[in-house]
């Protein structure tokens, strides 16, 4: 039997959800009868509304009559199980009914009017709260991570809570060359053996560095394992899936928020090759979900809540990069599924509020929102687009390689013994990272500090090794940095950077996907920035030694500063990030907000586009889609994939000739019949037809609703037994007085399930599912019911068409 396709895999979790701790996280649990304050969902109104217009076609235009059963609504009807997909149409319809009721009531009394105004503004209030909270959390994370990263090096004697920079904040003992040294800051070697010089001190520092890194990562993975396993990973693939309508209970809960926030700091501080951007999106979404409980409008409606979550994703990126517009576009381009205009405005406001909260916290002490803010405004020449495009190609290649390697590694983790030792894995990777990272200056510092250094252009004021030009510090006065052959400092730096590039590339592959919170924006950008800076320095030296070449003579006149290696680093970072995530516009806008000028949009766009094209040519999916597919989440991609042309009948269940479809009839079945049908199959819904002979469709009933209603009626309604007839019709025919009481279930039936013809091309079916956010859809031929198509069927069909294993689609 093929029919099991429409079974509910997540059914076993219903119990746990109904008694879950994070009860208020889903409307299903919110309707738990044990919590007296949670009002019943809006079903009675909705059903009353339906029955208002639900006369039969025979023209019974009688007065609307409420169904007996639904005078007291059954709790749980209209909710979802864990690991299931919501029905957007139903949710939006519910919200409209709720809104309608509030509006109609608001004319009655002043109190109701006030309530309706509050209701209208609750969305904005929610945005304000999310912005404030996310900004505050991001600020806290920045400060803590900065401090803990420096803790690996040493301690501040002024006050242990200061990091290295703030320890030397008001010190006058810093020198131009070693501008971060001050007597208040003691390295571990100085604290332990009393001196910071010599090989012994180096060994002590090395040991301490590794030990702290191991401690941090061990703590992180232990906390994740003990309190909130959902807090691991980047979170963006899951949030993408959730936004498309999937339900993962507890994924956005209080504990996840707490643990993710705490362990993110630990993970970042441990020096692992990971960033905090993806997890910050997850943190924002958790905040949003938690604040949603305050407003019944959002608590009870899965679709409305997803609008808020889309805005929260924008907030996450906004605080991660200090780029509110870029955040909104990221949410629009990369994460969101349903993004109405209202959400656009709201997410923009929330992103702004968050950015300004973060700015007022001022985590870096320089009124900037990120560590790597670009301050140069050097012009670029049109011919430089060639190296920028090359960087784009590099970014695309790196993106494709990274995705393949990381997916292969994650699959290995999933299927082999590797996956059984998550704690050991994290500790081992940390050990390797720390041991390899310490000797190299550019890997010892945190990735964002590295990016910051690479993005900075060399000026007179810089003392970085990267600016170690031969006549750099010869003090020629004026803007004398124009002619610059590489000095010894730069040569060493280039060598170190090359090692750092290889190091980052390899370690990021194994790090992303470990059981600690990990984002990959920063590592990807670091890889790109290193590559870009190297190319920039190479170009610069080329131009210096070959002034006379035709290509250079036009823009590199002697004495003019014609190539900006920092710009190359920026373009490289954009290219690599673009290759991995396949973002384009949002990436460019984020970079634009980092630089605050339109000058560099064209180089960035060229690199991002090239990178996307190259990466797309090597593998269609971005890293997030690849992880979604690896995990088998039910996610319908917006990209139109070109499959061979098939029609709806090829997708639907039951397959042709594979036995009849399990249906209910609108009259003539008893409770026992229905229960038998339900227990003999595992479908999560049943069509209701006119009669056993006529396959004409009347409506659709969900398994969960049916079971809950029958259960409830048996317990509470007098006279309902196994032999009671079930009616889905509007009017119950009069029953003989001796027979058991009839059970009227029209209220739980969806009177308007979407139907498609069996000739509908699959492309159109996919389009309809995506755009309307359907969960299932019925297939008819010439008006007769033929079968049913669920989201899972479509995903399986698409997997088959792409020659992948259709059983990789796990959830429904």
């Amino acid at each position, binding site marked *: 039997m093929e029919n099991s396709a429409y079974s509910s895999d997540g059914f076993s979790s219903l119990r746990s959800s109904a008694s879950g701790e994070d009860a208020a996280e889903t409307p299903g649990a919110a309707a738990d009868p044990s919590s007296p304050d949670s009002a019943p969902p809006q079903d009675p109104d909705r059903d009353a509304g339906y029955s208002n217009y639900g006369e039969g076609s025979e023209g019974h235009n009688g007065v609307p009559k409420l169904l007996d059963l639904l005078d007291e609504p059954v709790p749980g009807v209209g909710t979802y199980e864990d690991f299931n997909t919501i029905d957007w149409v139903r949710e939006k319809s519910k919200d409209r009914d709720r809104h309608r009721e509030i509006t109609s009531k608001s004319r009655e009394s002043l109190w109701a009017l006030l309530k309706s105004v509050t209701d209208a503004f609750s969305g904005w209030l929610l945005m304000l709260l999310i912005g404030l909270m996310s900004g505050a959390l991001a600020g806290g994370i920045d400060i803590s991570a900065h401090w803990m990263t420096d803790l690996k090096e040493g301690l501040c004697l002024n006050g242990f*809570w200061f990091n290295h920079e703030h320890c030397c904040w008001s010190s006058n003992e810093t020198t131009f060359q070693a501008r971060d040294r001050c007597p208040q800051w003691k390295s571990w070697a100085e604290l332990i053996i009393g001196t910071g010089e010599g090989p012994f001190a180096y060994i002590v520092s090395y040991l301490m560095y590794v030990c702290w890194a191991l401690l941090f990562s061990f703590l992180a993975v232990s906390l994740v394992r003990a309190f909130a396993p959902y807090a691991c990973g980047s979170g963006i693939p899951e949030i993408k899936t959730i936004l498309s309508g999937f339900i993962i209970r507890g994924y956005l809960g209080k504990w996840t928020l707490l643990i993710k926030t705490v362990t993110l700091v630990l993970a970042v501080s441990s020096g692992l090759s990971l960033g905090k951007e993806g997890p910050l999106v997850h943190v924002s979404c958790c905040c949003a979900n938690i604040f949603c409980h305050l407003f019944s409008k959002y608590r009870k409606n899965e679709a409305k809540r997803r609008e808020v979550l889309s805005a929260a994703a924008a907030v996450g990126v906004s605080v991660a990069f200090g780029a509110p517009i870029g955040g909104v576009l990221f949410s629009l381009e990369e994460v969101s599924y349903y993004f109405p205009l209202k959400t656009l405005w709201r997410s923009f406001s929330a992103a702004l509020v968050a950015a300004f909260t973060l700015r007022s916290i001022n985590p870096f002490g320089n009124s900037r929102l990120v560590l790597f803010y670009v301050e140069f405004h050097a012009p670029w020449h049109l011919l430089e687009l060639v190296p920028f495009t090359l960087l784009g190609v590099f970014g695309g290649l790196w993106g494709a390689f990274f995705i393949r390697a990381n997916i292969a590694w994650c699959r290995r983790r999933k299927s082999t013994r590797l996956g059984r030792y998550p704690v050991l894995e994290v500790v081992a990777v940390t050990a390797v990272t720390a041991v390899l990272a310490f000797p190299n200056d550019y890997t010892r510092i945190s990735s964002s500090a590295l990016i910051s250094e690479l993005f900075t252009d060399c000026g007179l004021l810089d003392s970085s090794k990267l600016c170690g030009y031969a006549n750099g510090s010869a003090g020629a006065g004026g803007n004398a940095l124009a002619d610059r052959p590489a000095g010894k400092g730069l040569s060493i730096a280039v060598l170190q950077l090359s090692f750092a590039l290889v190091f980052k590339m390899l370690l990021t592959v194994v790090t992303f996907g470990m059981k600690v919170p990990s984002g990959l924006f920063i590592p990807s950008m670091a890889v790109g920035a290193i590559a870009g800076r190297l190319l920039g320095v190479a170009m610069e030296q080329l131009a210096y030694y070959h002034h006379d070449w035709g290509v250079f003579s036009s823009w590199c006149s002697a004495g003019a500063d014609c190539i900006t290696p920092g710009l190359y680093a920026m373009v490289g970072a954009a290219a690599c990030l673009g290759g991995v995530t396949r973002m384009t516009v949002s990436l460019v806008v984020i970079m634009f907000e980092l630089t605050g000028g339109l000058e560099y949009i064209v180089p960035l766009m060229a690199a991002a586009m090239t990178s996307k094209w190259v990466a797309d040519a090597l593998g269609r999916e971005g890293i997030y889609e690849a992880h979604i597919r690896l995990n088998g989440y039910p996610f319908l991609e917006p990209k139109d994939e070109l499959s061979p042309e098939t029609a709806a009948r090829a997708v639907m269940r039951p397959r042709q000739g594979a036995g009849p479809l399990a249906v209910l009839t609108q009259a003539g079945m008893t409770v026992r019949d229905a229960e038998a049908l339900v227990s003999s199959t595992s479908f999560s819904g049943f069509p209701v037809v006119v009669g056993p002979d006529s396959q004409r469709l009347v409506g659709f009933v969900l398994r969960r609703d049916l079971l809950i209603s029958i259960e409830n009626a048996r317990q509470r309604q007098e006279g309902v037994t196994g032999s009671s007839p079930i009616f889905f019709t509007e009017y119950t025919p009069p029953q003989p007085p001796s027979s058991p009481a009839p059970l009227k279930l029209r209220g739980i039936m969806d009177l308007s399930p979407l139907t498609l013809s069996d000739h509908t091309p699959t492309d159109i079916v996919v389009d309809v599912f995506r755009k309307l956010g359907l969960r299932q859809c019925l297939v008819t031929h010439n008006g007769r019911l033929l079968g049913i198509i669920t989201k899972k069927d479509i995903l399986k069909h698409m997997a088959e068409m792409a020659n992948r294993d259709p059983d990789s689609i796990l959830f429904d």
Partner: protein
Amino acid sequence: SKSFEDVRCKCICPPYRNISGHIYNRNVSQKDCNCLHVVEPMPVPGHDVEAYCLLCECKYEERSSNTIKVTIIIYLSVVGSLLLYMLFLLLVDPLIRKQDIYTQPLQNEEDTEDMRAPVEGLQVRGSTVLERVEGAQQRWKKQVQEQRKTVFDRHKMLS
């Protein structure tokens, strides 16, 4: 409200003629944050001051050391309490209630009668506050266990 330590004006002066680069740091107000007020003693004679000062770059910066202090202390205490609680759950809890551990695996099998769960949940809840907290904790633990199974054992989620 700004403490004396929380503002600084930092001037970075690059090498100039035979004077090496230097960094000056003073607590002055934003208005006075310029080379003339901060660079003391001036390393060049009077007529060169202007040229020297043109090369220097002065930045006024603010921070809130209280915010930093409070953040770090809160963070450390949260991590500390989480660690303690984790140790408690790992070491002490199993000793107190041994019987619970044996009943739990059974419950995961009985998935058929889900519909009664909410009603049961109602009765399980005790009346005293302690029992309620207990119940909530039990439910939460079950949920975490479920999550742990999904993520770590079955590898169904989060790769």
